């Protein structure tokens, strides 16, 4: 999962919830859960501590998006973040990172103790404790990369990986890979990318995250409420029609913003038994005008029968009318005879 945008304590909490839910369901990572939550929080606190946050400075870096990413890999969990730092602070930050990376476990413990006892607090509130803890908890060195942003600021990427077993010494993702992914997301105007299980708690955590992207002055506007409903229907459609593999309804969803317009794209494999019925229904709704869809919607609403999972196709109709039919979809058969469904919706 990748997130680019506003960073706050609220977002940190939501990302931790989302990651915890995800890891809980992937049983083999359950034991890492607490450590992962800690590392996420630390990554964020680094963003806040070293990030450029004063209101007066925001304008100069308006086109910069801060970044957070968590990836659950086969043998490890990778957590990374990126933010701007003042050029003057780069050297000291890099020195701190190099120092913690060069120390043994015992030396790290000693440094931790000595910082606690005598540590100087930086102007943004933290000593190197966060960095020391990140290396201690993860058991791997911190990955970092600094690139020049402009005359005043540099962009720093920090990554940390935590493996399933202490014996695993290799890391799976390089900091250059993380930089590459960040650039791809920025080029595609993506604010949020989630790939994973769409069932259980994930939906509400995702909705929370999106809600915070749509909320202005603590208020959700009428149109953004409509957008949120659209997204809920898109996500719940994945678990309704999605192909369940080992009990997971895997899917991918992105939220992007181009020219101040939000788009949501969602894709997943669908079960072959449901394919034909689902495709016919999508095609049928797509062939109707907005007025016809509204009429059909009302007819379904007045039908007292509730289907096993609830909504008699209302979800698809809701997506169609809320976006003013600003959507397209496709079904692709893969070489393994799987059906891959994707939908792209322009929000209002």
């Amino acid at each position: 999962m990748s997130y680019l945008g506003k960073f706050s304590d609220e977002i940190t909490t939501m990302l931790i919830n989302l990651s915890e839910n995800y890891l809980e369901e992937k049983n083999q990572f359950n034991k890492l859960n607490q450590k992962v939550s800690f590392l996420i929080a630390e990554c964020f606190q680094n963003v806040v501590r070293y990030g450029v946050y004063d209101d007066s400075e925001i304008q100069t870096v308006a086109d910069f998006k801060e970044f957070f990413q968590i990836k659950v890999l086969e043998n490890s969990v990778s957590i990374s973040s990126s933010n701007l730092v003042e050029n003057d602070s780069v050297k000291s930050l890099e020195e701190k990172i190099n120092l913690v990376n060069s120390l043994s476990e015992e030396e790290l413990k000693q440094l931790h103790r000595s910082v606690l006892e005598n540590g100087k607090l930086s102007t943004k509130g933290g000593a190197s404790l966060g960095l020391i803890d990140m290396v201690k908890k993860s058991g791997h060195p911190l990955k970092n990369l600094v690139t020049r942003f402009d005359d005043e600021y540099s962009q720093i990427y920090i990554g940390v990986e935590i493996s399933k077993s202490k014996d695993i010494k290799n890391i799976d993702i390089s900091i250059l890979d993380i930089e590459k992914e960040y650039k791809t997301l920025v080029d595609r105007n993506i604010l949020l990318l989630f790939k994973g299980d769409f069932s259980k708690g994930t939906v509400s955590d995702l909705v929370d995250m999106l809600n915070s992207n749509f909320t202005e002055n603590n208020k959700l506007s009428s149109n953004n409420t409509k957008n949120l409903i659209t997204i809920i229907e898109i996500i719940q459609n994945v678990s309704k029609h999605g192909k369940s593999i080992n009990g997971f309804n895997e899917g991918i969803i992105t939220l992007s913003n181009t020219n101040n317009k939000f788009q949501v794209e969602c894709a997943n494999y669908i079960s072959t038994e449901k394919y034909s019925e689902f495709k016919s229904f999508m095609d049928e709704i797509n062939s109707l005008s907005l007025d016809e869809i509204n009429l059909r919607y009302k007819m379904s609403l007045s039908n007292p029968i509730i289907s096993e999972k609830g909504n008699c196709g209302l979800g698809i109709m809701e997506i169609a009318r809320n976006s003013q039919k600003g959507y397209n979809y496709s079904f692709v058969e893969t070489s393994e005879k799987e059906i891959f469904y994707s939908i792209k919706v322009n929000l209002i």
Partner: protein
Amino acid sequence: MEKLIIEDTKETPYIELDGANGIFKFTGKSYPENVNLIYSPVLSYIEEYGKNPKKQSILEFKWLYFNTATSKIIASLVFMLKAIKTELVINWYCELDFDTMIEKGEEFRDALDINLNIINV
């Protein structure tokens, strides 16, 4: 009939069912994936209430937003209360300029052929 109160969660609303006074309130968000699971105690309560209803029954909705599966539950509640011998009042509270929820209320009014009062708050 004892009150049934179901506290809200991230995905489900605060629900207060007061059969003794014939007042049934739903407040907040509702987008659970499996609505039947969450709302089955509500529907059972209304079914029980139907055996000895008050002269007037009031359904009160103060929604932030809800999914289409919840729409079907709202419709079911209305069907159940329409089928019993009671004067049904439906109050749909929403903010003055909150068109999305006002439209939803109007749609229920048309689709279910009911008197639904849209009340600005």
